[in-house]
């Protein structure tokens, strides 16, 4: 029996069937592996597979199988289908292992599957439904009022923000409404580095949570709005401290498929997108930064999936950490492209909070084995989930964004 395309009602998915069909079901994606002459890396890197274990949940094999089964009419949509699809964090670990030509399309396929789920409205997690129903009004997934977006800034500063600047600091929803410590530290850092920047009350959610859960129809308005901001503020680009915003602004807004969504929403052109850590690394390399103090701690770095695997920025954070006087960087066994996700992305933190924190607890336990006292990262969403795990475990480790480490001890030369 051949897997003939029959169910063309699943439009987003059907468009990708040529690619979906390239999955041979070999299972390479189910386990992290790299060979070497004297040792090799071998570890489970798929958090979903680690938790649920069945083939459907493990690596990209299961999701590609579901897509084939649905498109060929072998199975019908059910609540369990949605569960399999929505417990995928979209971390991209399986993409690193895939060796066939479906590889580059895997994340797009997962998001298309999540998108199709809305048509059936079976089993979509209540937490995801909840924020999705209000994001159009609030412009953020935290169900907070949009007018409170800049409340992380002191009122005096808020009222005197420049109307024109070279860069817009795009804080993102998590730093704006939850991890205000990171937004504030970034603001102070950019000031100390004498960057010409502003912050805007016009910032809306970058649309990452919408794209990652396949809600393309709502995402459109957000992308069209945000990409107009640089022109409005005379800026040449965005600076962001959020890995999720970085991936969305620099890839989804800009690139054609399979990486981005320019095919659906058009292209943002002529706008630089810089992660804070890249800015700092560049300034260190140019000799423009001076350290005024030391940071005498052992630190381990957690690679956010959206910055690491999705955008392939692995070394910039490490180079910055290595440049900090007194800081000793130690690696977890699973790092860089084989990093283990914190468990927050893809709608999982909102949809399956217990599973989400269970995943981040696994990551914190791994961090504890390094001998570090601090976990650092460059993503407020990871920060939040890992910090919840530290609390849940009553771990002695401390969570700090690299920006929080840097801000007190740097100045512009």
């Amino acid at each position: 029996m051949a897997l003939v395309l029959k169910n063309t009602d699943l439009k987003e998915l059907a468009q990708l069937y040529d690619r979906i069909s390239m999955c041979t079901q070999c299972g390479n994606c189910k386990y992290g592996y790299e060979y070497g002459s004297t040792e090799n890396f071998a570890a489970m890197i798929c958090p979903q597979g680690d938790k649920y274990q069945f083939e459907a949940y493990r690596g990209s094999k299961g999701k590609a199988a579901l897509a084939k089964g649905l498109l060929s009419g072998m199975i019908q949509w059910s609540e369990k289908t949605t569960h399999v699809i929505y417990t995928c964090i979209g971390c991209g670990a399986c993409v690193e292992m895939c060796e066939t030509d479906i590889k580059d399309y895997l994340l797009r396929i997962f998001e298309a599957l999540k998108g199709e789920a809305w048509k059936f409205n079976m089993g979509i997690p209540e937490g995801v439904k909840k924020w999705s129903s209000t994001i159009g009004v609030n412009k953020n997934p935290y169900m907070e009022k949009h007018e409170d977006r800049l409340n992380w800034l002191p009122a005096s500063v808020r009222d005197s923000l420049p109307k024109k600047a070279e860069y817009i600091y795009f804080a993102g929803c998590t730093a704006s409404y939850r991890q205000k410590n990171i937004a504030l530290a970034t603001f102070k850092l950019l000031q100390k580095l004498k960057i010409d920047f502003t912050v805007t009350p016009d910032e809306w959610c970058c649309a990452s949570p919408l794209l990652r859960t396949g809600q393309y129809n709502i995402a459109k308005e957000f992308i069209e709005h945000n990409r107009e901001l640089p022109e409005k503020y005379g800026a040449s680009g965005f600076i962001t401290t959020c890995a999720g915003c970085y991936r969305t602004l620099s890839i989804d807004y800009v690139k054609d498929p399979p990486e981005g969504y320019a095919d659906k929403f058009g292209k943002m052109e002529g706008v630089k997108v810089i992660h804070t850590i890249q800015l700092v690394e560049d300034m260190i390399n140019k000799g423009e930064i001076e350290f005024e103090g030391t940071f005498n701690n052992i630190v381990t770095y957690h690679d956010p999936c959206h910055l690491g695997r999705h955008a392939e920025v692995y070394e910039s954070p490490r180079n910055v950490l290595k440049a900090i006087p007194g800081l000793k960087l130690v690696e977890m066994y699973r790092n860089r492209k084989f990093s283990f996700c914190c468990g927050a992305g893809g709608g999982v933190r909102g949809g399956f909070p217990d599973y989400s924190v269970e995943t981040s607890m696994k990551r914190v336990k791994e961090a504890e084995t390094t001998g570090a006292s601090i976990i650092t990262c460059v993503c407020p969403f990871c920060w939040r989930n890992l910090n919840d795990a530290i609390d849940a475990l009553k771990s002695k480790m401390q969570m700090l964004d690299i920006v929080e480490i840097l801000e007190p001890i740097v100045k512009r030369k």
Partner: protein
Amino acid sequence: MARGNREVLAKLEQIVGPDYVSNEEAVLLPYSWDLTWADPRLPDYVVMPKTVTEIQRVLRLANHMRIPVIPYVNATNIGGLCVPEEGGIVMDLKRMDKIIKIDPETCYAIIEPGVSHAQLSAALKATNPQWEGYEFSKGFEFGWGVHPASASVLAMAINHGIGHLNGRLGINSQLISSMEVVLPTAEVVKLGSCAFSDSWHSFLPLPRMDGLFLGWMGTTGIVTKLGIWIFPIRPYKDVLTIAAETAYDMTRYMVHWRHYSLCDEVTAVSWWLAQIPIPYPYQEKPKDTPEWFSYTVISGWSEEELEYKRKMWKKVVAEEKARGTKLIDFEYPPEAKRGRTELPSRIIGSTKNYSKSCGGGLAWPGTFAPCKSWPILYEKWKEIYIRHNLSPAVRFTDFQGAHYGMLRLMTPFDKRNPESVKAARDAMVECIRAGIPLGMLPYKPPVEYMNELNAAADAGYVYLMTKIKDMLDPNNIMNPGKLGIR
């Protein structure tokens, strides 16, 4: 949508816990097929036991209810072995993933079914051969095959899988030293030295009862622990390559070279298999290109030993050229060399070479055949494949001596297209039919190949196979339909 019935589901939940059993189609679907043209068939349940006791309880239930049980770990066998012909319970064993022991003195390991090649190779590389604490060298290895690193070491070994040491040591089922099996009727048995002590080092000199579970494709029991011999990693390695005009020339060279038993592996691939991806549908080979390409891996404990092997290899090549064998010099790319010497390899262990853009289908006539038949069968297979518009992507590999070796034909096809699936299936079955009279035997055979084998088999062979199957599995619950006899 749910399958099966609630009563069985509830009983399975009692045995393994509700998190490790499902009868939902969305969960069952990936267990319904594999890479091959085997028709997808959904199981009714999947269970993931963690212990031998749980396996026993599932089997007792299955016998009582007459439900098929299909052992499963990764389903990368390229033979449809785990596709549930008659529905039933897929028993996914990947939660049983302990490396129970690595004995660096007696040089064996004990593993559970869920242990992957990735996991075992990392553990073996971190263990050093030693005696009374004195370490001789760095790391151990096993026979790493050409498959994803997530594949099960145990499943591959008990189904006569091949590994990178097969030129030196034979196929992986020859490297098994002891085993624990749960019989279809749920009794636990130990075979080999482990039946008498805690040592899992050898089957010999006992009667080889392990043969009741090797190559039976999960139809006679569930192997829950396996003792395997492990081998010190030799620190010096090289890959030597040569091409040939024809399969006859290539076979002549390979037979001559392996006469000296100096290599870990010697393999040759036809031009179509050397392409990435394999051309699909069939494409003609460029006229100025050799038809065959081979590599051989040599290893040693010193550069001098390696150099001696190189010299011997050069001597063989020179002698063959002198007597008219058409051999052509060629160099392997560095990444391909790495893939052959730093194993298990993520590159050759993938499907990218085989199924790049063809609708995800991949299967083979994978066979063991006497070396004399290789070039004859290649010509026959080539004719069959070109007639079906498929590329003759053939591989020869020697297995430890003059006796036999692997002859197989990797075949990508388009699973979306019924005609493509049929053409691949028809071509492969025709190849098997053509090969059996010339001594060729398919390994990990799909049902269609088993039917061909049974049709050609000595009557006594089928009689005994049936009798053994009936004795061990009176209710025919273990992977029914795979042997073509019930």
